Every structure is written in structure tokens, then in C-alpha cells.
């Protein structure tokens, strides 16, 4: 194995690619491979090997490697029917049909190589309480169970609510369902992607239309010690490779707040109605 790695490393340098970092030797493999090549491989980052004592993942392990958290709270005070004119829909939607969702993934590269490792979903119960559920995978093998569980939360009349989910989270999940050979329950669902109406109202008024900006401007939410979304992939990879769970937990907190903000922005937009208003609204 080390001979193969060395050979590839060398071949790679010769062909003009950047040189590699030394690796510890590993057990050898097939002789053919060793004979053919002498290079070295393209190492872009050192794979982290350090293990950590802090491996605590909150929640109940409902399947091997799949952790589930459920919480109930009062949040939002929704009316029985939510107005949807702000999204240019014709009919209002019963509040219990709405399923707010947000994923945490392995990155933005797109394509079949990107996966979701956490799905968070929130909805209002019939009695108006807000239920927040999160599924977190701690192994790659737990993905199928996560996808199945999330599919069970979806009814034919479910309306998804997201922030940029139409372009990102939804296609990503549909790809994962297809790769896992599971039925795609997301296809054909109504989907309120709040990014677009927010842009219509406030593009050019705020410095940007990211969720963090919208929650601050519309809801007065200011997060403390928040882990930026761009660091979520690394948080999971670290845990997967045996490292600390501290950032994984921070991502779970981040995701939970994302869901709450999503619901809050939805209610705010519903009350605004169809016409964009340029006046800055007071927080609720």
C-alpha cells in the first residue's frame, strides 16, 4: 500500500500537480498495482486521526447510528389558516400542514457525492404547540434509516417550508432517496421557499437576504456563539473520524434556531400580504 501511495505521489509531482505529505505505511495490496506505478497521491488535507473523549450526541438512538430529538414549545401563535398571498399562492394553507425543514450537509459541491447528515423539521400541532424534531446520523450507514423516518413525517397534503430549499435541500434529498432506492415522497409536494419573497421585499434594502439577516431584521433574533453554516460539514467529519462531538452539538443548536426562525419569518410574511413594503418592520 505504501509503495502504491509513494508511486502515485511521485507520478503526481511529475505531472505538475502539487506534492504530497508523508503518510505512515500500511499493509500492502496486489502485486500488479505495485508493479505498474510509482507515484504518490494528491493529499490536500491531513486526515485527522486524533480521537476524542467527548463523543456525546444528545437524543435517543432510534436506529443504529441515528439519533432523534423531539421538543415541544410555544412558538409563533399561528392562525388556523396561514395566508399565502406573499408567495403568490391562491389559497391559504391550514397551519398543521406546514412542515418547516432544514438539512445539514457535507458541502455545496452538488451532484451525487453530497449527502445530508442531519434533517431538522418543525410543525404546529392541532393545539397550536410547536414541535421541533431533529434526526442526526453519526455513521454513514444510518442514512437510510434517517431518510425512511423523514418520509414517515410527510403526508400527501404536506406543504414544505424552507429557506432556499427549492434549489438546495429538496433536490439534494431527492437525490439521496433515489440513491438509497427509496420512494421519493418529496416529489409533487407544495413548497414555500421563503428566500424568494424575502428577496422581493428586501433586496437592496438589507445588506443581504441570508437567513441570519432576515431573522435579525424581522424577528430581532441575535445568536450567541453560533457555529456558521459553512463549518457544519467539518463538524460532522470530525466526529465521523473519531473526533470531538462539541461542534456537532453546536450545529444541532444552530439547526434548531434555523427552524424556529423559519417559522417566525413565515408568520411575519403571512401577515404582510402580497405587496412588498419597504418600511422596516419592528420585531415581534
Amino acid at each position, binding site marked *: 500500500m505504501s509503495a502504491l501511495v509513494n508511486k502515485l505521489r511521485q507520478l*503526481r509531482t511529475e505531472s505538475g500537480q502539487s506534492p504530497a505529505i508523508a503518510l505512515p505505511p500500511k499493509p500492502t495490496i496486489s502485486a500488479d498495482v505495485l508493479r*505498474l506505478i*510509482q507515484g504518490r*497521491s494528491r493529499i490536500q488535507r491531513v486526515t485527522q486521526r486524533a480521537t476524542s473523549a467527548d463523543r456525546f450526541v444528545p437524543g435517543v438512538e432510534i436506529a443504529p447510528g441515528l439519533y432523534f430529538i423531539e421538543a415541544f414549545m410555544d412558538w409563533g401563535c399561528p392562525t388556523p389558516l396561514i395566508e399565502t398571498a406573499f408567495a403568490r399562492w391562491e389559497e391559504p394553507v391550514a397551519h398543521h400542514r406546514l412542515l418547516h425543514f432544514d438539512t445539514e450537509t457535507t458541502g455545496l459541491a452538488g451532484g451525487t*457525492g453530497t449527502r445530508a447528515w442531519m434533517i431538522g423539521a418543525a410543525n404546529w400541532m392541532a393545539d397550536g404547540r410547536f414541535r421541533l424534531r431533529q434526526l442526526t446520523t453519526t455513521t454513514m450507514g444510518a442514512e437510510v434509516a434517517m431518510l425512511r423516518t423523514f418520509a414517515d413525517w410527510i403526508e400527501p397534503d404536506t406543504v414544505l417550508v424552507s429557506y432556499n430549499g427549492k434549489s438546495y435541500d429538496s433536490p439534494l434529498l431527492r437525490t439521496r432517496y433515489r440513491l438509497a432506492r427509496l420512494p421519493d415522497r418529496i416529489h409533487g409536494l407544495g413548497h414555500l421557499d421563503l428566500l424568494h419573497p424575502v428577496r422581493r421585499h428586501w433586496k437592496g434594502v438589507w445588506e443581504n437576504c441570508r437567513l441570519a439577516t432576515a431573522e435579525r431584521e424581522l424577528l430581532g433574533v441575535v445568536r450567541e456563539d453560533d457555529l456558521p453554516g459553512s463549518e457544519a460539514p467539518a463538524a460532522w467529519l470530525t466526529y465521523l473520524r473519531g473526533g470531538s462531538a462539541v461542534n456537532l452539538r453546536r450545529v444541532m443548536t444552530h439547526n434548531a434556531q434555523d427552524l424556529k426562525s423559519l417559522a417566525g419569518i413565515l408568520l411575519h410574511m403571512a401577515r404582510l400580504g402580497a405587496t412588498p413594503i419597504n418600511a422596516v418592520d419592528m420585531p415581534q
Partner: protein
Amino acid sequence: MNALPDRYASDELVLRHPSDGRTLAQRLSKRYAARITGAFMVPGREGSFAPLPDDLPPALAQALRSRGVEQLYSHQAEAWAATQSGAHVAVVTPTASGKSLCYTLPVITAAMTQHAKALYLFPTKALAQDQVAELLELNQAGALGVKAFTFDGDTPGDARQAIRLHGDIVVSNPDMLHQAILPHHTKWAQFFENLRYVVIDEVHTYRGVFGSHVANVIRRLKRVCAFYGVSPQFILCSATIGNPKEHAEALIEDAVTAITESGAPTGDKHVLLWNPPVVNPDLGLRASARSQTNRIARLAIKSGMKTLVFAQSRTMVEVLTKYLKDVFDNDPRKPARIRAYRGGYLPKERRAAEREMRAGSIDGIVSTSALELGVDIGSLDVVVLNGYPGSVAATWQRFGRAGRRQQSALGVLVASSDPLDQYLVRHPEFFQGATPEHARIQPDQPLILLDHIRCAAFELPFVGDEMFGTEIATPWLDVLGEEGVLHREGDRWEWIADSYPAIAVSLRSVADGNFVVVDRTNGRQMIIAEVDYTAAPVTLYEGAIHMIQSVPYQVERLDWEGRKAYVTRTQADYYTDAIDYTKLKVLDCFDTSNAGCGQAHHGEVHVVRRVPGYKKIRFYSHENIGYGSVNLPDQELHTTAVWWQLAQVVLDAAFEDRQQALDGFLGAAYALHIVATVAVMAEARDLQKSVGSGDGAWFVSADVSGRGQIRGTDGQPAALAPDAPFTPTVYLYDAFPGGIGQSEPLFNRREDLVAQSVTLIERCDCRGGCPACVGPVLAADEDAATTPKALALRVLALLVAL
């Protein structure tokens, strides 16, 4: 009527009445006998026909008849039978033999009767668009209900989803399949689930490095298809190469039924090999190929024959077009008779040119290799090649453009002063008897294979002992795990990185260190060219004069790490020539055999290449007017090579002194390199040469006076101690890391190569040596016994098999 007097009145001596290929060939042979080194004729053939098959859907048969197709050529009927039996098929017939019906019929039939889908892969967008246009016409003629679309980089975003869901026939190219379709295959789920046929056209172009990459893309395609539960049938089309069935089978890694006999009728084809006359006997300088091509094309068009001229560069297309337009298009009120065609023109312009050619309203076309591939431009009578296109197969492919059913056609190959051209044109028997080159690929070349396993792992996880191509993927997956892009859990390797691997893999190179050339003239910042990693140190050093389309630029700054060269336009009256040293060390010897009084070997070598400086050489006079130094990192290479060496005692007996032995070796290496390049259908820079000692202690390069100069491992001139061991060796190595498969065939033909090198030198007309046989020499080396030619022959004589 031309307004100006015809300044080529002497042309009338050649032309009398409208003529055909045979007559023109005869007249040219008579008048220019001294320039024609070879003339032969390929006889034409009667057509061989078959009725439209019974199992064709009636609507499709009706659509064909309404477009004038009442029966099929025999090879089209054979292709139908083979595809209906479920076999993979390779159709190997010449251009304009109706190859597309061989795949159109099975594909449309399957679309109509089973809602089956097909993927077409073409090497160029022009060909792809032509195909879709033809399919749409046929579809309309019979209201067949088949939807065909191109899917490439130009397809607008909002159209893409519609094509994925509703396209029956998707026409794309290997790069798009590699970078856009496969890594997003779930979006194409419906398409793949119903995929029945994969049609790949012009497969002879998928050879060498490019072909090795494409073979791996096909492996990935088959793997994704297996995920969706399908195993499509491949229909491949190829021009005539030496090994079409073997090549097709290597590309798809499965058995193929090859259809090689064309049923299309053709007329006789006359071929002339033309060497421009010598204008300076001392220096061996010849008239330019351009002047000859101009004359031949002019005569052909004047005698009423439709003529196509192939030029090797876009600039030369413009030059030749201008010459011909001066004669034929100098009345602006009349429609143009001469047209230029090349890749740089807008698609609309190219489509217009193709239409006019098909309609017959153009008399002369000048084109680059863009017209070598199958775009339909109607029938032509004469094809003139301005310079040898680099392979026998490509030459016949171009000649194939000329020919009508009943009339004889003419093809003329005009040689330039390039050593390969001169070799070909002086060995007409080689050209006439040569089977077209074999196309070779090496899909398991380690760097290429690793890149594609990486892409495949992005597309679908690898599980257990899964194979990729012919090997178990596990060792490669471990490497990718170390790289940090894959994570292993149990027996599964899954993609974990935030990156998109296909973006970083170019199907046309092994290295990804290409340099871009940025023009900074007058403050702009425009990328005007791309140069690969191995060519960069000899063409992009600071101070270099770098020619792009014959326009000179000077390199002001080279950013080695950033892979950028900054240039400005220059008016300098000189060009630059890099001094290039390579030294070689043998790592492993796979095979050895005797070669005359010496030995030939095949094995693995380590090559170091350094460019210490460059010469400034004035244009036209070729005087050396100065030097510059270059400060660039050495380039190292592990690759495969074939090499010859002679023992010391043998050399001491054959030569008066070591300097002579060295000079002889350099000349022999030069000749062997030319001959070997032709033998493996390689581009000149894919196969490199070097002379040194087998242990890497010293190496030899030609110094400023053309004499062999020994240099030590540090690149500085050195003298060899009189009693030191002396075993000069000539190496021919593959210029790609890991080798690309040229060394083994060369080793197998080693005796042939030595014999051909001897013939090459003996037959050369020059006095003491020239760039067409042993390399450039000075007038001073004219002493009969020790000319560079004589010395090279002496070395080769020692290597000729006893």
C-alpha cells in the same frame, strides 16, 4: 469574366477541357514529374444493395422512402441485423457511406416501439447539431413522435430539465457525459432506466491519452447504468484504422461485431505524393508547401473540379484562401467561389458554408482538420493536403472527402519541410502499402485510472470487492481514503469531501498542470493560448519569443506555481530556441535482446529535464545572435522507454575518437526518433529521445555548433576520462508520467526501426546531413568520411541484426 488579366497564362498548358481526377493526375504527373515522388490508384467499386428490412416499423419505412431512400447499402442492412440480434456493433466504413443510418434505424425503431432511449456521443458540437437536424427531419417526414435534443455546454439551464425528462435521443459529447451527466445521474434516472442504445461516433479519435480517458468514462457509464438495472447496446462508428474491431472492443470492454465492407459505390481514386522542388541545394532548402498547394488547387478549380484544401493551421487557411480568392473572387459583384472553413468561425457561418458546399455553389474550400470528421458537404473531385496530417489514417480520412459515384477523383499530398513529411513523401511505397495506424489506448494508466475511480466513487459508493474495469478497486479506494475524499465504513467507501472531482479531470491530458498564456499588450489581460506542462519550460521561459498563429509574442513573466505566462506582442527580428538537456537513468529492465553488436532494452526509466538557457536566432539568416539564461525547476519523469547501446570495445574499433562516436550517436538517435514516431502513430512530442550513459552519469546533447557535448549530472560540460567506461545509449521514451504504451510496440519492432533508420539516412538527398535525416548540421562538417550522416550510419550499422 475576371477584370484583371490572368497572370497565370502558363496554366493553359496544363488545362484543355473539363477533366476528371484521372486526367488531371496524368497532366500534373507529366508537367511536374520531378516533384511527384509517388503516384498510384485505388480502384472504385460497384454498389451492393439490400431491400428495406421487413421488421422496420411501417411509418419509419415510409419516412425513408419519402426522403428518397428506397433501399439500403449492404453494410446498413448488416448493421440492422446485428443490432436486432442484441450485439454491440462497430461500423467501419469510409466517410459518406451512409454510416448514420446504421444507428438511426435501430434507435428510432426502439424509440417508437418500446419508448426506449438512446445516448449519442459525438466529438464536436457541429456533428451533434447535424445529427439532431437529420433526426428531426426524418421524424417530421413520418410523424414518428421521436424527440431528439443536443445536451452540451451551450444548452440553457431551463431547457436541461425538460431534456432529461422528455428526450428520447440525447446527443452529447464525452466531456459533458464526464462532467455534467454522470455526476448528476439521479436527475437522469428516467433516462437511464429506459436507455437501450449508446451510439459513439468517430471512435478512431478516441486514442492515446484522450481515448484512455474516454474508455474510463464508458466504464463509469456502464456502472451507473447497472445501478438503474440496464445494460445498453453500443453502436460504434470508426474511420478506417488498422485495428477497428480490437479498438472498439478495448473501448467498451466487450465483444463487438465489426462491419467493415462498405456497400456504397465509389469511383477510382488517384493519389499523388508531391515534394516541393529544392531551391537551395547547399542548405537543402525547398520551396514552401503553400506555393505548391496554391498552384495545384488553382489548376484543379480552373479545370472545373470542386476542390478541398486541408491546411495544418488556421493561419495557413487564411493565407491559402487569400491566394485563391485573388484569382477567383476578385469581382465583388459575383458570388464567392472560394470559402474558408475553420473552428474559429461562428456556428452560423459554418452552417452557411456547409449548406453552400452541399448545394454545389462553391468551387474551392480551404479548411483545417475541422472538415476531416463527418460533416456532410456533398461531393468533391479533388483534395489537396498542405502538409502531412501526422498519420496515414488521417491522410486517407481526408482523401476520403473526394469522390463521386461514377467519376474518378484525385488526392494530392504536398510535403512540408517537416522531417515526418519528408520521410513520408520520400518513401511512397511505405505510404501506399501501409495499413493505417493502430489506435491504442491504455485505460489502466495509473493516474488516469485513479482520476476516474475518484469520479466513480463520487457517483456511486464502492462496496466490498467491487471491480472497476478489469481490476478490483480496493487498493485505489484506500489511496483515495488517504487523500481524504472517501470514508470507509464496513465494506463501503463513500464520498465525503466538499468537492466535485470531475471538474479537475481534463479528458485530454494526464497532467493537470496546463499553463495559460495571458496577453498583456496595451494593458489588456486576455488568455490567448494554453500550453501543457511538458512544453512549458521550452516555450514559455522569460525572454522566449512565443508564436501563436505565426504572430510573435515575448514572454515577460512566467508564474511557475500559478501556471501563467504573461506575454506582449513583439516586433523582434529573431526567434528563440531553448537549449534542452535531458538525462536518463534506468530503473528497471523488462526485456533485453541482442541488436547487432549491441543490445536493445525495454523498461522503466527516470528522466530529468533541464532548460539552462536559450539561443536567439535571427529570422531568415538563421544566425545565432545571442544567449539568454533560464532559471526554471527541473522536470522529472518516471516513464517507460526503449533503448539501444553498444559496448566500448565495439565502439573503439569503429571510431577514431569518442567525439565522433558521440556525434554518430546523436545522428542515429535523431533518425530513430523520426522512424519510431511514424511507427506508433504518435505526435512528435509524445515520444522523446535522449542520448546518455545507462547509469545516468553523463548525457549528450547537441551544443551550439551541432557537435555532441558531454555533460555531467549537473548539466555542465564535462570531459570523459580516457579510461572511463563508455557505453553511449540512445533512448526513446514516452513523454507521459507512467508511460502511455508506446515502448512495448517499439521494442517489438526494434529491428525494423533500425533498418528503416538506415534507409532514411541513405536515401536523403542532402550532402552531410539535414533536419530531415540526422538533424541540422553546419556547412563545416562536409568532409566525406566523417560527415554526420556517415557517422550516424556507422553507429546504426553496428546495431543492425546480424
